């Protein structure tokens, strides 16, 4: 029961986006994918979800190549929350969440599916938006509705104890601070229920808070991997992100707390340009 990338490389348009990356995810664990912009985080997530065929290597789900699973079988086992979803048609938020049940529905949604969609909306705190039109929601509300859709997709344990997976691509990008931590708490809770969660995040503190394991990518390669305490050291972060940080144990949960130490901001007091006023004067003289 693993979701596994074995030596995958992705080359698109002559650029090497992933270079021989191997990664095994276990159910019941939250894995955070870190790295600077363009490091290959989203590409790796796309390869894991089957959106992108690796140029070399393959992704294995329960020991079988991803290609060997039908789209419906995959959809019953893993949900994906994309970075951003555009939906111009005026579905209600509830209809969007209910679509998450699609891989489990034979003919029409049953009351059971409707109940699951409701519970998923409660879990991400959007039940009050159920009857709102999706295009009228704010960016953060949309993201939480989409999160609820992904939850509804893998809500129930599967028969024969098959593992469930949740792939989140920057789920906190447009959320406010409180909702970021709420979303991560939901991800933790899911992992406790046996779901394997992989999440792309930019905020290192958020990653340290939520993850059992962090994987840091740099220019398409795995640069650091391990428990947050081991992997998120000032030296590693400096070499990957090019930023000085101080790492201290968090006062509440003891996990790493990362404070960036950029050079102090330069505040220049520019002298008021004098030439402008004389220019104006000359203009006035001339126009008269």
């Amino acid at each position, binding site marked *: 029961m693993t979701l596994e990338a074995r030596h995958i490389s992705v080359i698109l348009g002559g650029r090497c986006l992933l270079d021989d990356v191997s990664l095994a995810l276990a159910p019941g664990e939250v894995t955070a994918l870190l790295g600077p912009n363009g490091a290959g985080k989203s590409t790796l997530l796309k390869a894991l*979800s*089957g*959106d992108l065929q690796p140029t070399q290597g393959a992704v294995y789900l329960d020991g079988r190549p991803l290609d060997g699973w*039908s*789209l*419906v*079988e*995959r*959809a*019953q086992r*893993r*949900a*994906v929350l*994309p970075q951003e*979803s*555009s*939906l*111009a*048609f*005026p*579905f*209600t938020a*509830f*209809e*969007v969440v*209910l*679509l*998450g049940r*699609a*891989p489990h*529905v034979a003919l029409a*949604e049953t009351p059971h599916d*409707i109940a699951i969609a*409701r519970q998923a909306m*409660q879990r991400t705190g959007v*039940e*009050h*938006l*159920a*009857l709102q*039109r999706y*295009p*009228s929601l704010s960016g953060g509300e949309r993201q939480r509705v989409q999160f609820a859709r992904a939850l509804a*997709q893998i809500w129930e344990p599967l028969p024969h104890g098959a593992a469930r997976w949740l792939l989140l691509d920057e789920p906190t990008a447009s959320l406010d601070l409180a909702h970021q931590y709420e979303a991560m708490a939901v991800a933790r809770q899911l992992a406790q229920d046996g779901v394997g969660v992989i999440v792309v995040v930019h905020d290192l503190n958020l990653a340290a808070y939520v993850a059992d394991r962090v994987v840091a990518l740099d220019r398409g390669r795995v640069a650091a991997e391990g428990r947050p305490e081991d992997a998120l050291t000032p030296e590693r972060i400096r070499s990957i992100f090019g930023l000085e940080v101080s790492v201290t144990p968090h006062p509440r949960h003891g996990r790493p707390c990362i404070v960036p130490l950029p050079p102090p901001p330069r505040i220049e007091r520019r002298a008021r340009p004098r030439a402008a006023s004389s220019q104006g004067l000359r203009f006035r003289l001339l126009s008269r």
Partner: protein
Amino acid sequence: MAAINALATHPQAMKVTGRWLIGGLAGALAVIALLAFGIGAVAIAPMQSLAIIADQLGLDLGVPFTEQQRAVLLTIRLPRVLFGALIGAGLAMAGATMQGVFRNPLADPGIIGVSSGAALAAVLCIRANGWLFGKSGGALAAYQLPLAAFLGGGAAVYAVYRLARREGTLSVGLLLLAGIALAMLTEALRGALIFAATDDQLRSVTFWSLGSLGAASWFNLALVALLALPAMVCLGRLARPLDALLLGESEARHLGFDVASLVRTTMLAATLIVGSAVAFAGIVGFIGLVAPHLIRLAAGPSHRTLLPGAALLGACLVVLADLLARTVVSPAEMPLGVVTASLGAPCFLWLLLREGGFRS
């Protein structure tokens, strides 16, 4: 909390609106059909129409009617109404599907090139003046224009499809652009052909491109039904995948739907429907764009109500427009496209303004 409580009953409530809407539209279609049966040079009362049809099925309703009325209804008006209803329903369903596939409420059923290809082939056929089956014609002469239009439409869609395939994957964005490019190209070719046409040919081309149900007959109806009905049934079964596709291509794939095969199936179905409709009725604009819109305004974007609702509304609109087209300037006949556009566009604009636009 009120929202949660409403939520418990909400999907049920949605279904009821959808059912009411579809029931209402079906009733409206029946009324419009009875009107269309009755109005014309030979008047037939609604009960008489029913009596004639019942008599045909071996039932006696006890309403008197003349042989002339029976002949007019059975050989002229009944096939014409059914023909119009079938074409309207097909165009509206194809339009709704294409708007869903391209995730664009402004798409119309011809967006994949079928009507422009058919139009070019029709002009070519009119210009060639019966070259296909010989000038004198024979039994097939009446069918060379429909055949040419249908094949032209099919060829254009195939060209668009091939252009949009890259490295084995089908891109919806490329499909849209290829459709637009091909439409421009065929328009230019059509212009060149028209430029060199005689006055008679020009008149034929103009009338063809404005649409008409004049070709309605039982045989033509059967031909169109044979091509379009299976495609319509197929589209009707794709409501949930089309809903998922509105979320996005990769989102639909994550939900377990094979997007490429969905796009292929819908393209094929739309080609069969629009190709056969254009072949026998010319270009009937506006229905495929507007009927789905109006249903969306009334019942939301879910394809489960949208597809049957748009089909019924499209049927109503075409039958009604044809009734006006053949009665307003009787005994002459107005082109169908003129009626659909001149009546429909103001109605549509009024509804849009009243609803506050696209809500997006």
